[in-house]
């Protein structure tokens, strides 16, 4: 039995490396993106085998699901943009440019990568096994947090500081994507088209409610078993992506007041809890005795909504409008985008318009 389990672990590990290597070497972008999703799913299998069900849930919903959808969406836009989309020109979804350097360089790269990999593996395997000090520490003081799932205890109790800044990073990413460009939401499907695709519609109608209920369950059970805000939010965002992409739900409007409120609500509440309780507890993000469970549950609920809205927003708002300026097609891509020549002090000495 244990040999069989060992064989399973080794095959998952080998499969993982093979999938990643193939994704990095292929010249077809669609193949690479599909392999990325496959890596996410294989990785969640590895998390289950490593005894990390919380990470497995997040990886399956986020690493494979939402990020995969993001890549597919961006791929779609790139494929529609390329000059090759209309006439025979460079096609952006088939990479012909990379790796055409001289053979010696490529051999050297592969050799250096091999040396690096072997060195890393030797170092990592050679690390002596120590006692599980951190795990022991968490186990003995878990009672103070009021929850019994150690991962939730670490995320919202002992290391709430990290989680606070993670939510900050998400809000910043959302604002940064807004500032790039307002996306056009042309991925939403026409209702007419949907009627011709009964499989997608039926599947979405069946899956979305179940996944929604599952997300609520994950928040609730996160205090005692696998689950929690991030896993639930990833699932909820996945439902949103599915509903939007299948045309059953109108895409949420980027920058709308509701999106702003929902997206920043989690961060605001987190900061309020951290600062507001300071008169009683004396330190930032400390919870008063006996209130840990209630505070964690409320925070998790609000964070779930916030993170789900931010992730959905990031998916929808991938800047599009890639109508390449026709003038750019004939211009040296290594220079200024509009073909102007700049002098040292940045002054324009020649522009294509003046030439004509």
């Amino acid at each position, binding site marked *: 039995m244990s040999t069989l389990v060992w064989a399973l672990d080794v095959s998952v590990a080998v499969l993982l490396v093979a999938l990643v290597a193939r994704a990095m070497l292929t010249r077809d972008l669609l193949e690479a993106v599909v392999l990325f999703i496959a890596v996410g799913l294989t990785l969640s299998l590895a998390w289950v085998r490593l005894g990390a069900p919380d990470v497995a849930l997040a990886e399956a919903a*986020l690493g494979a699901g939402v990020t995969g959808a993001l890549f597919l969406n961006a791929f779609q836009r790139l494929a529609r943009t390329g000059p090759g989309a209309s006439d025979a020109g460079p096609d952006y979804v088939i990479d012909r440019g990379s790796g055409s350097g001289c053979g010696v360089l490529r051999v050297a790269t592969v050799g250096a990568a091999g040396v690096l990999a072997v060195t890393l593996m030797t170092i990592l395997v050679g690390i002596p096994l120590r006692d599980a000090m951190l795990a022991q520490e968490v186990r003995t003081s878990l009672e103070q947090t009021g929850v019994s799932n150690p991962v939730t205890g670490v995320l919202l109790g002992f290391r709430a500081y990290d989680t606070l800044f993670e939510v900050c990073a998400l809000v910043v990413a959302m604002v940064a994507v807004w500032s790039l460009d307002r996306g056009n939401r042309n991925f939403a499907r026409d209702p007419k088209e949907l009627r011709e695709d009964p499989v997608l519609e039926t599947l979405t109608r069946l899956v979305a409610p179940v996944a929604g209920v599952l997300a609520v369950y994950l928040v609730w059970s996160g205090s005692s078993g696998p689950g929690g805000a991030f896993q639930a939010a990833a699932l909820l965002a996945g439902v949103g992506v599915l509903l939007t992409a299948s045309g059953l739900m109108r895409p949420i409007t980027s920058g709308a007041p509701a999106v702003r409120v929902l997206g920043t609500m989690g961060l605001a509440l987190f900061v309020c809890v951290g600062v507001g309780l300071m008169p009683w507890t004396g330190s930032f993000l400390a919870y008063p005795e006996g209130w840990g469970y209630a505070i964690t549950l409320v925070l998790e609920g609000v964070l779930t909504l916030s993170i789900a809205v931010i992730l959905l927003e990031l998916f929808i708002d991938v800047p599009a409008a890639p109508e390449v300026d026709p003038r750019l097609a004939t211009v040296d891509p290594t220079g200024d985008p509009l073909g102007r020549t700049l002098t040292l002090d940045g002054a324009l000495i020649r522009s294509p318009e003046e030439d004509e």
Partner: protein
Amino acid sequence: MSSEIAYVIAGAAVFVAGLVGTMGRTHLFWKILGVNFMGSGIFLILIAAAPRLPGEGADPVPQAMVLTGIVVAAASSALALGMALRVVVRSGGPFLSEDAPGPPAERTEPEVDSPGPRT
């Protein structure tokens, strides 16, 4: 015990494969994929190499770190893809200017000496 070693070794291999893709490919989408794979490799090492209590799952502290990392990686991928698509619009291809594949035939030489790396 040996199972964890298999995942640690796989993590190192995945990290190096991602690094090679990030450095070696010129197409921006492969660079973003490569950075994601590098992250996945590090996550694997973090969880698989952490010592664990007998009879229990993985150490909860690296688990929480990796959970945080997965969410941040998704958000930063969204931002990176958005910027890559802006590069396509601005410069006509998913490449950084110094990596752009062969210049078009009607390329004109700049009339002044190139003032260092152009951006």
